[in-house]
Protein backbone atom coordinates (compact mmCIF):
# COMPACT_ATOMS: atom_id res chain seq x y z
CA UNK A 1 0.00 0.00 0.00
CA UNK A 2 2.73 2.43 0.95
CA UNK A 3 4.49 1.54 -2.25
CA UNK A 4 1.33 2.13 -4.29
CA UNK A 5 0.78 5.43 -2.55
CA UNK A 6 4.37 6.48 -3.10
CA UNK A 7 4.16 5.37 -6.72
CA UNK A 8 1.14 7.54 -7.42
CA UNK A 9 2.40 10.54 -5.50
CA UNK A 10 5.63 10.38 -7.48
CA UNK A 11 3.63 10.10 -10.68
CA UNK A 12 1.56 13.05 -9.60
CA UNK A 13 4.62 15.15 -8.84
CA UNK A 14 6.14 14.37 -12.23
CA UNK A 15 2.92 15.15 -14.09
CA UNK A 16 2.62 18.23 -11.90
CA UNK A 17 6.10 19.30 -12.98
CA UNK A 18 4.91 19.25 -16.61
CA UNK A 19 1.82 21.23 -15.70
CA UNK A 20 4.07 23.75 -13.98
CA UNK A 21 6.32 24.23 -17.00
CA UNK A 22 3.36 24.57 -19.34
CA UNK A 23 1.37 26.77 -17.00
CA UNK A 24 4.28 29.11 -16.22
CA UNK A 25 4.74 29.80 -19.92
CA UNK A 26 1.03 30.35 -20.43
CA UNK A 27 0.90 32.54 -17.37
CA UNK A 28 3.80 34.74 -18.50
CA UNK A 29 2.10 35.41 -21.83
CA UNK A 30 -1.30 35.88 -20.27
CA UNK A 31 -0.10 38.33 -17.63
CA UNK A 32 1.89 40.61 -19.89
CA UNK A 33 0.07 40.40 -23.21
CA UNK A 34 -3.44 39.42 -22.18
CA UNK A 35 -3.31 36.56 -24.65
CA UNK A 36 -4.64 33.10 -23.81
CA UNK A 37 -2.31 31.00 -25.88
CA UNK A 38 -4.37 28.03 -26.98
CA UNK A 39 -1.49 26.95 -29.20
CA UNK A 40 0.79 26.45 -26.18
CA UNK A 41 0.24 22.70 -26.31
CA UNK A 42 1.06 22.86 -30.00
CA UNK A 43 4.43 24.42 -29.22
CA UNK A 44 5.10 21.63 -26.74
CA UNK A 45 4.49 19.14 -29.54
CA UNK A 46 6.74 21.08 -31.90
CA UNK A 47 9.51 21.04 -29.29
CA UNK A 48 9.11 17.29 -28.88
CA UNK A 49 9.18 16.55 -32.60
CA UNK A 50 12.17 18.81 -33.17
CA UNK A 51 13.97 16.82 -30.49
CA UNK A 52 12.90 13.58 -32.16
CA UNK A 53 14.23 14.79 -35.51
CA UNK A 54 17.61 16.04 -34.33
CA UNK A 55 18.38 13.33 -31.76
CA UNK A 56 19.85 10.92 -34.36
CA UNK A 57 22.40 13.58 -35.34
CA UNK A 58 23.39 15.25 -32.12
CA UNK A 59 22.17 12.84 -29.45
CA UNK A 60 19.75 13.33 -26.59
CA UNK A 61 21.83 15.95 -24.78
CA UNK A 62 22.23 18.04 -27.89
CA UNK A 63 18.50 17.85 -28.53
CA UNK A 64 17.73 18.85 -24.96
CA UNK A 65 19.91 21.92 -25.37
CA UNK A 66 18.91 22.84 -28.90
CA UNK A 67 15.21 21.99 -29.27
CA UNK A 68 13.79 24.51 -26.75
CA UNK A 69 15.58 27.53 -28.29
CA UNK A 70 14.52 26.38 -31.78
CA UNK A 71 10.93 26.17 -30.58
CA UNK A 72 11.28 29.62 -29.06
CA UNK A 73 12.45 30.98 -32.41
CA UNK A 74 9.37 29.51 -34.10
CA UNK A 75 7.35 31.11 -31.33
CA UNK A 76 9.02 34.48 -31.99
CA UNK A 77 8.10 34.28 -35.67
CA UNK A 78 4.51 33.36 -34.85
CA UNK A 79 4.29 36.22 -32.37
CA UNK A 80 5.74 38.71 -34.81
CA UNK A 81 3.59 37.70 -37.80
CA UNK A 82 0.29 36.58 -36.32
CA UNK A 83 -0.15 37.81 -32.78
CA UNK A 84 1.39 41.27 -32.80
CA UNK A 85 -1.34 42.75 -35.03
CA UNK A 86 -3.87 41.73 -32.40
CA UNK A 87 -2.48 43.53 -29.33
CA UNK A 88 -4.83 46.23 -28.23
CA UNK A 89 -7.80 44.56 -29.85
CA UNK A 90 -10.46 42.57 -28.02
CA UNK A 91 -8.74 39.54 -26.39
CA UNK A 92 -11.32 37.43 -28.21
CA UNK A 93 -9.29 37.70 -31.39
CA UNK A 94 -5.99 36.40 -30.07
CA UNK A 95 -7.92 33.60 -28.39
CA UNK A 96 -9.55 32.58 -31.69
CA UNK A 97 -6.33 32.90 -33.61
CA UNK A 98 -4.28 30.71 -31.30
CA UNK A 99 -7.20 28.30 -31.17
CA UNK A 100 -7.04 27.92 -34.96
CA UNK A 101 -3.26 27.75 -34.79
CA UNK A 102 -3.50 24.81 -32.37
CA UNK A 103 -5.59 22.95 -34.96
CA UNK A 104 -3.05 23.69 -37.66
CA UNK A 105 -0.08 22.58 -35.55
CA UNK A 106 -1.76 19.34 -34.49
CA UNK A 107 -2.78 18.49 -38.04
CA UNK A 108 0.55 19.67 -39.43
CA UNK A 109 2.61 17.45 -37.12
CA UNK A 110 0.35 14.54 -38.03
CA UNK A 111 0.96 15.31 -41.68
CA UNK A 112 4.73 15.60 -41.36
CA UNK A 113 5.54 12.90 -38.81
CA UNK A 114 2.53 10.60 -39.06
CA UNK A 115 -0.20 9.80 -36.53
CA UNK A 116 1.73 6.99 -34.79
CA UNK A 117 3.55 7.68 -31.56
CA UNK A 118 7.29 8.23 -31.90
CA UNK A 119 9.82 7.19 -29.29
CA UNK A 120 12.73 9.41 -28.32
CA UNK A 121 15.74 7.42 -27.17
CA UNK A 122 17.14 8.52 -23.86
CA UNK A 123 20.63 7.68 -22.61
CA UNK A 124 20.60 4.11 -21.22
CA UNK A 125 21.91 5.01 -17.78
CA UNK A 126 18.91 7.29 -17.25
CA UNK A 127 16.45 4.52 -18.12
CA UNK A 128 17.55 2.35 -15.17
CA UNK A 129 15.34 2.17 -12.09
CA UNK A 130 17.14 3.30 -8.95
CA UNK A 131 16.35 0.17 -6.94
CA UNK A 132 14.10 -2.86 -7.07
CA UNK A 133 11.79 -1.62 -4.36
CA UNK A 134 11.36 1.75 -5.97
CA UNK A 135 11.15 0.37 -9.49
CA UNK A 136 9.06 3.31 -10.65
CA UNK A 137 11.70 5.92 -9.91
CA UNK A 138 13.90 5.71 -12.96
CA UNK A 139 16.88 7.94 -13.38
CA UNK A 140 15.05 9.74 -16.17
CA UNK A 141 12.17 10.71 -13.92
CA UNK A 142 14.53 12.17 -11.33
CA UNK A 143 16.39 13.89 -14.10
CA UNK A 144 13.18 15.40 -15.46
CA UNK A 145 12.17 16.76 -12.10
CA UNK A 146 15.69 18.19 -11.65
CA UNK A 147 15.55 19.91 -15.05
CA UNK A 148 12.14 21.36 -14.29
CA UNK A 149 13.37 22.63 -10.94
CA UNK A 150 16.42 24.25 -12.52
CA UNK A 151 14.30 25.81 -15.27
CA UNK A 152 11.80 27.22 -12.78
CA UNK A 153 14.59 28.53 -10.55
CA UNK A 154 16.28 30.20 -13.52
CA UNK A 155 12.96 31.73 -14.58
CA UNK A 156 12.44 33.26 -11.16
CA UNK A 157 16.04 34.54 -11.07
CA UNK A 158 15.50 36.04 -14.52
CA UNK A 159 12.33 37.76 -13.40
CA UNK A 160 13.75 39.04 -10.13
CA UNK A 161 17.31 40.08 -10.92
CA UNK A 162 17.64 40.90 -14.60
CA UNK A 163 16.57 44.10 -16.29
CA UNK A 164 14.33 42.12 -18.67
CA UNK A 165 12.66 40.39 -15.76
CA UNK A 166 12.03 43.62 -13.89
CA UNK A 167 10.48 45.10 -17.01
CA UNK A 168 8.27 42.06 -17.53
CA UNK A 169 7.04 42.25 -13.96
CA UNK A 170 6.47 45.99 -14.21
CA UNK A 171 4.66 45.54 -17.53
CA UNK A 172 2.38 42.98 -15.95
CA UNK A 173 1.25 45.55 -13.43
CA UNK A 174 1.04 48.61 -15.66
CA UNK A 175 2.11 48.35 -19.25
CA UNK A 176 1.20 51.94 -20.09
CA UNK A 177 3.58 53.40 -17.54
CA UNK A 178 6.33 51.07 -18.69
CA UNK A 179 5.80 52.28 -22.24
CA UNK A 180 5.80 55.90 -21.07
CA UNK A 181 9.20 55.33 -19.45
CA UNK A 182 10.62 54.70 -22.88
CA UNK A 183 10.79 50.95 -22.90
CA UNK A 184 10.10 49.15 -26.16
CA UNK A 185 6.94 47.33 -25.23
CA UNK A 186 6.70 45.40 -28.50
CA UNK A 187 10.17 43.99 -27.91
CA UNK A 188 9.31 43.21 -24.31
CA UNK A 189 6.22 41.28 -25.36
CA UNK A 190 8.16 39.37 -28.01
CA UNK A 191 10.89 38.34 -25.58
CA UNK A 192 8.35 37.42 -22.96
CA UNK A 193 6.47 35.33 -25.51
CA UNK A 194 9.70 33.62 -26.50
CA UNK A 195 10.48 32.77 -22.86
CA UNK A 196 7.03 31.23 -22.50
CA UNK A 197 7.42 29.18 -25.68
CA UNK A 198 10.92 28.13 -24.60
CA UNK A 199 9.37 26.54 -21.52
CA UNK A 200 6.76 24.80 -23.69
CA UNK A 201 9.52 23.47 -25.95
CA UNK A 202 11.49 22.25 -22.95
CA UNK A 203 8.50 20.37 -21.58
CA UNK A 204 8.03 18.91 -25.06
CA UNK A 205 11.53 17.45 -25.09
CA UNK A 206 11.19 16.07 -21.57
CA UNK A 207 7.75 14.62 -22.26
CA UNK A 208 9.01 13.01 -25.45
CA UNK A 209 11.61 11.04 -23.51
CA UNK A 210 9.09 9.85 -20.96
CA UNK A 211 5.85 9.28 -22.85
CA UNK A 212 6.84 9.12 -26.52
CA UNK A 213 5.42 11.61 -28.99
CA UNK A 214 1.94 11.98 -30.37
CA UNK A 215 0.42 14.91 -32.25
CA UNK A 216 -2.38 15.21 -29.68
CA UNK A 217 -0.24 15.20 -26.53
CA UNK A 218 -0.21 19.00 -26.23
CA UNK A 219 -3.98 19.34 -26.13
CA UNK A 220 -4.18 16.93 -23.22
CA UNK A 221 -1.78 19.01 -21.14
CA UNK A 222 -3.41 22.34 -21.96
CA UNK A 223 -6.52 22.14 -19.81
CA UNK A 224 -4.72 21.07 -16.60
CA UNK A 225 -2.34 23.99 -17.15
CA UNK A 226 -5.29 26.37 -17.33
CA UNK A 227 -6.57 24.94 -14.09
CA UNK A 228 -3.15 25.22 -12.48
CA UNK A 229 -3.21 28.93 -13.30
CA UNK A 230 -6.75 29.45 -12.03
CA UNK A 231 -6.16 27.46 -8.82
CA UNK A 232 -2.91 29.27 -8.11
CA UNK A 233 -4.45 32.64 -8.80
CA UNK A 234 -4.31 34.40 -12.14
CA UNK A 235 -1.50 36.93 -12.22
CA UNK A 236 0.72 35.18 -9.69
CA UNK A 237 3.62 33.06 -10.95
CA UNK A 238 4.37 31.45 -7.56
CA UNK A 239 0.66 30.64 -7.49
CA UNK A 240 0.93 28.92 -10.86
CA UNK A 241 3.87 26.90 -9.54
CA UNK A 242 1.94 25.80 -6.47
CA UNK A 243 -1.23 25.18 -8.46
CA UNK A 244 0.52 22.89 -10.94
CA UNK A 245 2.12 20.76 -8.24
CA UNK A 246 -1.10 20.68 -6.24
CA UNK A 247 -3.31 19.40 -9.05
CA UNK A 248 -0.61 16.94 -10.12
CA UNK A 249 -0.39 15.38 -6.67
CA UNK A 250 -4.17 15.54 -6.19
CA UNK A 251 -4.80 13.60 -9.38
CA UNK A 252 -2.00 11.16 -8.48
CA UNK A 253 -3.51 10.51 -5.06
CA UNK A 254 -7.00 10.11 -6.49
CA UNK A 255 -5.63 7.51 -8.88
CA UNK A 256 -4.92 5.31 -5.83
CA UNK A 257 -8.39 5.40 -4.39
CA UNK A 258 -10.72 6.18 -7.28
CA UNK A 259 -8.93 5.77 -10.62
CA UNK A 260 -11.92 6.87 -12.71
CA UNK A 261 -11.97 10.27 -11.02
CA UNK A 262 -8.26 11.05 -11.35
CA UNK A 263 -8.93 13.53 -14.14
CA UNK A 264 -12.17 14.91 -12.74
CA UNK A 265 -10.58 15.70 -9.37
CA UNK A 266 -8.64 18.67 -10.69
CA UNK A 267 -11.91 20.29 -11.75
CA UNK A 268 -13.44 19.63 -8.36
CA UNK A 269 -10.33 21.16 -6.79
CA UNK A 270 -10.74 24.24 -8.97
CA UNK A 271 -14.40 24.64 -8.04
CA UNK A 272 -13.61 24.33 -4.31
CA UNK A 273 -10.76 26.83 -4.50
CA UNK A 274 -12.88 29.33 -6.42
CA UNK A 275 -15.73 28.98 -3.95
CA UNK A 276 -13.51 29.54 -0.92
CA UNK A 277 -11.03 31.97 -2.45
CA UNK A 278 -12.44 33.51 -5.64
CA UNK A 279 -9.04 34.93 -6.55
CA UNK A 280 -7.23 31.62 -6.35
CA UNK A 281 -4.70 30.54 -3.73
CA UNK A 282 -2.11 33.25 -4.36
CA UNK A 283 -4.20 35.75 -6.29
CA UNK A 284 -4.08 39.29 -5.02
CA UNK A 285 -6.68 41.98 -4.91
CA UNK A 286 -6.63 43.99 -8.11
CA UNK A 287 -4.69 41.43 -10.12
CA UNK A 288 -7.74 39.67 -11.46
CA UNK A 289 -9.79 42.22 -13.26
Amino acid sequence: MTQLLLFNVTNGLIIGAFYVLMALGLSLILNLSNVINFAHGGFLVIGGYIAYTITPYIGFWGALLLAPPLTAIIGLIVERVLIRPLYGRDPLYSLLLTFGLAFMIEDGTRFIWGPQGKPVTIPPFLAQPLSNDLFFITGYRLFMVAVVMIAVALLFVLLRYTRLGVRIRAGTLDLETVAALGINVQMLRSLNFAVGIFLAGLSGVLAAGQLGLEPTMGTGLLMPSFIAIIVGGIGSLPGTLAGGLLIGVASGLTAVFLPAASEAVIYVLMAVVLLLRPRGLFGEEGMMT
Partner: protein
Amino acid sequence: MNSAQTRKLITLTAIWAVLLFAPFWMLPLGGYTALATRVLVLGLAAMSLNFLLGFTGVLSFGHAAYFGLGAYGAGLTLKFLAPSTPLALVLGMLLGGVCGALLGALIVRRRGVYFAMVTIAFGQVFYYIAFQWSSLTGGDDGLRGFSRQPIDFGLFQIDILSNANNFYYFVLFCFALMVGVMGYILRSPFGRTMIAIRENERRSRFLGIPVERHIWIAFTLSCFFMGFAGALYALVNNFADPRGLHYSQSGDFVMMAVMGGMRSFWGPLLGAAVFVVLQDYLSSVTVNWMSFVGLLFVLVVLFFPRGLLGFIQRSKA
Protein backbone atom coordinates in the same frame (compact mmCIF):
# COMPACT_ATOMS: atom_id res chain seq x y z
CA MET B 1 -42.16 54.84 -43.05
CA ASN B 2 -38.65 56.15 -43.63
CA SER B 3 -36.02 54.48 -45.78
CA ALA B 4 -34.16 52.85 -42.91
CA GLN B 5 -37.30 51.12 -41.75
CA THR B 6 -38.13 50.02 -45.28
CA ARG B 7 -34.69 48.57 -45.71
CA LYS B 8 -35.00 46.69 -42.44
CA LEU B 9 -38.37 45.30 -43.49
CA ILE B 10 -37.00 44.16 -46.83
CA THR B 11 -34.01 42.48 -45.14
CA LEU B 12 -36.23 40.68 -42.68
CA THR B 13 -38.61 39.52 -45.38
CA ALA B 14 -35.67 38.28 -47.41
CA ILE B 15 -34.17 36.35 -44.46
CA TRP B 16 -37.42 34.63 -43.60
CA ALA B 17 -38.19 33.88 -47.25
CA VAL B 18 -34.78 32.25 -47.68
CA LEU B 19 -35.34 30.18 -44.54
CA LEU B 20 -38.91 29.23 -45.44
CA PHE B 21 -38.03 28.00 -48.89
CA ALA B 22 -34.66 26.44 -47.96
CA PRO B 23 -35.78 22.83 -48.63
CA PHE B 24 -36.70 23.88 -52.18
CA TRP B 25 -33.72 25.92 -53.27
CA MET B 26 -31.09 23.86 -51.47
CA LEU B 27 -31.61 20.65 -53.44
CA PRO B 28 -30.82 22.08 -56.88
CA LEU B 29 -27.66 23.66 -55.41
CA GLY B 30 -26.40 20.28 -54.23
CA GLY B 31 -27.43 20.65 -50.59
CA TYR B 32 -29.78 18.45 -48.64
CA THR B 33 -32.54 19.28 -46.19
CA ALA B 34 -30.73 17.80 -43.20
CA LEU B 35 -27.86 20.22 -43.85
CA ALA B 36 -30.30 23.13 -43.73
CA THR B 37 -31.68 21.81 -40.44
CA ARG B 38 -28.19 21.64 -38.99
CA VAL B 39 -27.41 25.17 -40.11
CA LEU B 40 -30.57 26.38 -38.42
CA VAL B 41 -29.81 24.65 -35.12
CA LEU B 42 -26.13 25.63 -35.00
CA GLY B 43 -27.12 29.11 -36.13
CA LEU B 44 -29.49 29.35 -33.19
CA ALA B 45 -26.63 28.24 -30.92
CA ALA B 46 -24.30 30.86 -32.38
CA MET B 47 -26.98 33.53 -31.97
CA SER B 48 -27.52 32.46 -28.36
CA LEU B 49 -23.81 32.80 -27.69
CA ASN B 50 -23.77 36.15 -29.45
CA PHE B 51 -26.57 37.34 -27.18
CA LEU B 52 -23.84 37.33 -24.52
CA LEU B 53 -20.74 37.88 -26.64
CA GLY B 54 -21.91 40.56 -29.04
CA PHE B 55 -24.56 42.34 -27.02
CA THR B 56 -23.22 42.21 -23.47
CA GLY B 57 -19.58 42.10 -24.47
CA VAL B 58 -18.72 39.20 -22.17
CA LEU B 59 -16.37 36.60 -23.60
CA SER B 60 -17.58 33.10 -22.80
CA PHE B 61 -15.50 30.37 -24.37
CA GLY B 62 -17.28 27.49 -22.69
CA HIS B 63 -20.77 27.77 -24.07
CA ALA B 64 -20.68 24.39 -25.79
CA ALA B 65 -21.16 22.90 -22.31
CA TYR B 66 -24.69 24.29 -22.06
CA PHE B 67 -25.38 23.28 -25.65
CA GLY B 68 -24.28 19.74 -24.84
CA LEU B 69 -26.22 19.71 -21.57
CA GLY B 70 -29.34 20.63 -23.54
CA ALA B 71 -28.66 17.75 -25.88
CA TYR B 72 -28.21 15.28 -23.03
CA GLY B 73 -31.27 16.67 -21.26
CA ALA B 74 -33.41 16.07 -24.33
CA GLY B 75 -31.89 12.65 -24.99
CA LEU B 76 -32.29 11.42 -21.43
CA THR B 77 -35.88 12.66 -21.33
CA LEU B 78 -36.78 10.77 -24.49
CA LYS B 79 -34.93 7.68 -23.37
CA PHE B 80 -35.99 7.36 -19.76
CA LEU B 81 -38.81 9.78 -18.96
CA ALA B 82 -41.45 10.13 -21.65
CA PRO B 83 -41.58 9.86 -25.45
CA SER B 84 -42.53 13.49 -25.93
CA THR B 85 -40.59 15.86 -28.17
CA PRO B 86 -41.82 19.13 -26.57
CA LEU B 87 -41.05 17.84 -23.07
CA ALA B 88 -37.56 16.86 -24.25
CA LEU B 89 -36.98 20.37 -25.59
CA VAL B 90 -38.19 22.03 -22.40
CA LEU B 91 -36.17 19.80 -20.08
CA GLY B 92 -33.07 20.10 -22.24
CA MET B 93 -33.36 23.86 -22.13
CA LEU B 94 -33.87 23.78 -18.36
CA LEU B 95 -30.81 21.59 -17.79
CA GLY B 96 -28.58 23.90 -19.82
CA GLY B 97 -30.07 27.05 -18.33
CA VAL B 98 -30.03 26.00 -14.70
CA CYS B 99 -26.42 24.79 -14.86
CA GLY B 100 -25.53 28.06 -16.57
CA ALA B 101 -27.26 30.05 -13.84
CA LEU B 102 -25.38 28.22 -11.08
CA LEU B 103 -21.97 28.58 -12.68
CA GLY B 104 -22.68 32.10 -13.82
CA ALA B 105 -23.13 33.16 -10.22
CA LEU B 106 -19.66 31.80 -9.44
CA ILE B 107 -17.79 33.54 -12.23
CA VAL B 108 -19.70 36.72 -12.93
CA ARG B 109 -17.13 39.00 -11.29
CA ARG B 110 -14.38 38.09 -13.77
CA ARG B 111 -13.78 40.08 -16.91
CA GLY B 112 -12.11 39.67 -20.27
CA VAL B 113 -9.60 36.89 -20.70
CA TYR B 114 -10.08 35.74 -17.13
CA PHE B 115 -13.79 35.25 -17.68
CA ALA B 116 -12.94 33.30 -20.82
CA MET B 117 -10.48 31.06 -18.97
CA VAL B 118 -12.83 30.24 -16.14
CA THR B 119 -15.71 29.53 -18.53
CA ILE B 120 -13.48 27.17 -20.52
CA ALA B 121 -12.38 25.31 -17.43
CA PHE B 122 -15.88 24.98 -16.00
CA GLY B 123 -17.25 23.94 -19.38
CA GLN B 124 -14.80 21.06 -19.29
CA VAL B 125 -16.31 19.93 -15.98
CA PHE B 126 -19.53 19.05 -17.78
CA TYR B 127 -17.56 17.45 -20.57
CA TYR B 128 -15.86 15.17 -18.08
CA ILE B 129 -19.12 14.30 -16.38
CA ALA B 130 -20.67 13.33 -19.71
CA PHE B 131 -17.53 11.46 -20.64
CA GLN B 132 -17.04 9.54 -17.39
CA TRP B 133 -20.59 8.77 -16.27
CA SER B 134 -20.90 5.95 -18.79
CA SER B 135 -23.82 4.17 -17.13
CA LEU B 136 -26.07 7.17 -17.68
CA THR B 137 -24.58 9.02 -20.63
CA GLY B 138 -22.96 6.25 -22.67
CA GLY B 139 -19.53 7.79 -22.08
CA ASP B 140 -17.27 8.12 -25.07
CA ASP B 141 -19.81 6.50 -27.41
CA GLY B 142 -22.40 9.14 -26.64
CA LEU B 143 -26.02 8.75 -25.73
CA ARG B 144 -27.95 6.55 -28.14
CA GLY B 145 -31.20 4.67 -28.15
CA PHE B 146 -33.70 7.50 -28.41
CA SER B 147 -35.42 9.22 -31.30
CA ARG B 148 -37.59 12.26 -31.78
CA GLN B 149 -41.32 11.59 -31.54
CA PRO B 150 -44.22 12.76 -33.71
CA ILE B 151 -45.81 15.98 -32.50
CA ASP B 152 -49.22 15.08 -31.16
CA PHE B 153 -52.01 17.65 -31.44
CA GLY B 154 -54.74 15.28 -30.27
CA LEU B 155 -56.70 15.40 -33.50
CA PHE B 156 -53.74 14.82 -35.77
CA GLN B 157 -50.03 14.14 -35.61
CA ILE B 158 -47.10 15.61 -37.46
CA ASP B 159 -44.49 13.09 -38.42
CA ILE B 160 -41.10 14.71 -37.90
CA LEU B 161 -39.10 11.51 -37.72
CA SER B 162 -39.14 10.16 -41.25
CA ASN B 163 -40.18 13.26 -43.17
CA ALA B 164 -37.15 15.55 -43.46
CA ASN B 165 -39.16 18.54 -44.66
CA ASN B 166 -41.65 18.30 -41.82
CA PHE B 167 -38.77 18.20 -39.38
CA TYR B 168 -37.12 21.19 -41.02
CA TYR B 169 -40.30 23.23 -40.58
CA PHE B 170 -40.64 22.07 -37.02
CA VAL B 171 -37.08 23.24 -36.32
CA LEU B 172 -37.76 26.49 -38.17
CA PHE B 173 -40.80 27.07 -35.98
CA CYS B 174 -38.73 26.53 -32.81
CA PHE B 175 -35.98 28.73 -34.23
CA ALA B 176 -38.46 31.53 -34.99
CA LEU B 177 -39.87 31.28 -31.47
CA MET B 178 -36.45 31.58 -29.80
CA VAL B 179 -35.21 34.29 -32.13
CA GLY B 180 -38.40 36.22 -31.47
CA VAL B 181 -37.85 36.04 -27.72
CA MET B 182 -34.21 37.01 -28.16
CA GLY B 183 -35.09 40.01 -30.29
CA TYR B 184 -37.79 41.05 -27.84
CA ILE B 185 -35.33 40.94 -24.90
CA LEU B 186 -32.73 42.91 -26.83
CA ARG B 187 -35.26 45.63 -27.56
CA SER B 188 -36.50 45.81 -23.98
CA PRO B 189 -34.94 48.16 -21.41
CA PHE B 190 -32.98 45.19 -20.11
CA GLY B 191 -31.49 44.59 -23.56
CA ARG B 192 -30.55 48.27 -23.87
CA THR B 193 -28.82 48.03 -20.50
CA MET B 194 -26.85 45.04 -21.73
CA ILE B 195 -25.59 47.09 -24.66
CA ALA B 196 -24.78 49.97 -22.33
CA ILE B 197 -22.62 47.62 -20.26
CA ARG B 198 -20.87 46.45 -23.40
CA GLU B 199 -20.13 49.98 -24.48
CA ASN B 200 -18.95 51.35 -21.16
CA GLU B 201 -19.06 49.21 -18.09
CA ARG B 202 -17.66 51.80 -15.71
CA ARG B 203 -20.12 54.43 -16.78
CA SER B 204 -23.02 51.98 -16.44
CA ARG B 205 -21.85 51.27 -12.91
CA PHE B 206 -21.76 54.97 -12.08
CA LEU B 207 -25.30 55.30 -13.42
CA GLY B 208 -26.36 52.87 -10.71
CA ILE B 209 -26.85 49.83 -12.91
CA PRO B 210 -26.13 46.62 -11.00
CA VAL B 211 -23.64 45.41 -13.60
CA GLU B 212 -22.89 42.01 -12.07
CA ARG B 213 -26.55 41.12 -11.80
CA HIS B 214 -27.20 42.12 -15.40
CA ILE B 215 -24.27 40.11 -16.67
CA TRP B 216 -25.42 37.14 -14.64
CA ILE B 217 -28.95 37.38 -16.07
CA ALA B 218 -27.61 37.77 -19.61
CA PHE B 219 -25.32 34.78 -19.09
CA THR B 220 -28.19 32.70 -17.75
CA LEU B 221 -30.58 33.66 -20.54
CA SER B 222 -27.94 32.88 -23.10
CA CYS B 223 -27.44 29.46 -21.49
CA PHE B 224 -31.18 28.79 -21.66
CA PHE B 225 -31.19 29.58 -25.39
CA MET B 226 -28.08 27.49 -25.78
CA GLY B 227 -29.68 24.56 -23.96
CA PHE B 228 -32.67 24.79 -26.25
CA ALA B 229 -30.44 24.74 -29.33
CA GLY B 230 -28.62 21.74 -27.89
CA ALA B 231 -31.89 19.91 -27.28
CA LEU B 232 -32.85 20.55 -30.90
CA TYR B 233 -29.48 19.23 -31.98
CA ALA B 234 -30.08 15.99 -30.09
CA LEU B 235 -33.34 15.65 -32.01
CA VAL B 236 -31.56 16.30 -35.30
CA ASN B 237 -29.08 13.47 -34.74
CA ASN B 238 -31.11 11.24 -32.40
CA PHE B 239 -27.81 11.16 -30.56
CA ALA B 240 -25.94 13.21 -27.94
CA ASP B 241 -22.17 13.40 -28.17
CA PRO B 242 -19.80 14.27 -25.30
CA ARG B 243 -17.65 16.17 -27.81
CA GLY B 244 -20.61 18.53 -28.15
CA LEU B 245 -19.63 19.85 -24.70
CA HIS B 246 -15.93 20.16 -25.40
CA TYR B 247 -14.24 23.55 -25.58
CA SER B 248 -13.32 22.98 -29.22
CA GLN B 249 -17.06 23.06 -29.95
CA SER B 250 -17.23 26.35 -28.03
CA GLY B 251 -14.49 27.64 -30.29
CA ASP B 252 -16.57 26.72 -33.33
CA PHE B 253 -19.54 28.66 -31.95
CA VAL B 254 -17.42 31.73 -31.23
CA MET B 255 -16.01 31.44 -34.73
CA MET B 256 -19.49 31.32 -36.27
CA ALA B 257 -20.46 34.46 -34.38
CA VAL B 258 -17.27 36.32 -35.30
CA MET B 259 -17.28 35.19 -38.92
CA GLY B 260 -20.85 36.30 -39.44
CA GLY B 261 -20.50 39.56 -37.54
CA MET B 262 -20.79 39.87 -33.77
CA ARG B 263 -22.40 43.25 -33.78
CA SER B 264 -25.38 42.23 -35.84
CA PHE B 265 -28.35 40.17 -34.76
CA TRP B 266 -28.39 37.88 -37.82
CA GLY B 267 -24.64 37.69 -38.37
CA PRO B 268 -24.08 34.49 -36.38
CA LEU B 269 -26.68 32.67 -38.49
CA LEU B 270 -24.79 33.61 -41.63
CA GLY B 271 -21.53 32.59 -39.95
CA ALA B 272 -23.02 29.24 -38.97
CA ALA B 273 -24.23 28.64 -42.51
CA VAL B 274 -20.81 29.35 -44.00
CA PHE B 275 -19.01 27.36 -41.31
CA VAL B 276 -21.25 24.28 -41.50
CA VAL B 277 -21.27 24.13 -45.28
CA LEU B 278 -17.51 24.67 -45.46
CA GLN B 279 -16.78 22.02 -42.85
CA ASP B 280 -19.16 19.59 -44.57
CA TYR B 281 -17.37 20.19 -47.85
CA LEU B 282 -13.80 20.16 -46.50
CA SER B 283 -14.24 16.95 -44.53
CA SER B 284 -15.52 15.25 -47.69
CA VAL B 285 -12.56 16.28 -49.85
CA THR B 286 -9.52 16.16 -47.55
CA VAL B 287 -8.38 14.33 -44.43
CA ASN B 288 -6.47 17.44 -43.40
CA TRP B 289 -9.65 19.48 -42.98
CA MET B 290 -8.51 20.41 -39.45
CA SER B 291 -5.67 22.46 -40.93
CA PHE B 292 -8.04 24.28 -43.20
CA VAL B 293 -10.51 25.04 -40.44
CA GLY B 294 -7.57 26.30 -38.36
CA LEU B 295 -6.40 28.41 -41.27
CA LEU B 296 -9.92 29.80 -41.60
CA PHE B 297 -9.77 30.90 -37.95
CA VAL B 298 -6.44 32.64 -38.52
CA LEU B 299 -7.52 34.35 -41.73
CA VAL B 300 -10.85 35.56 -40.36
CA VAL B 301 -9.17 37.01 -37.27
CA LEU B 302 -6.46 38.76 -39.27
CA PHE B 303 -8.47 40.00 -42.25
CA PHE B 304 -12.20 39.94 -41.42
CA PRO B 305 -12.39 40.66 -37.69
CA ARG B 306 -15.74 42.39 -38.13
CA GLY B 307 -17.22 39.39 -39.88
CA LEU B 308 -18.97 39.05 -43.20
CA LEU B 309 -21.81 41.43 -42.36
CA GLY B 310 -19.45 44.00 -40.86
CA PHE B 311 -17.33 43.75 -43.98
CA ILE B 312 -20.30 44.27 -46.29
CA GLN B 313 -21.61 47.17 -44.24
CA ARG B 314 -18.27 48.90 -44.18
CA SER B 315 -17.59 48.55 -47.88
CA LYS B 316 -21.05 49.97 -48.54
CA ALA B 317 -20.44 53.00 -46.34
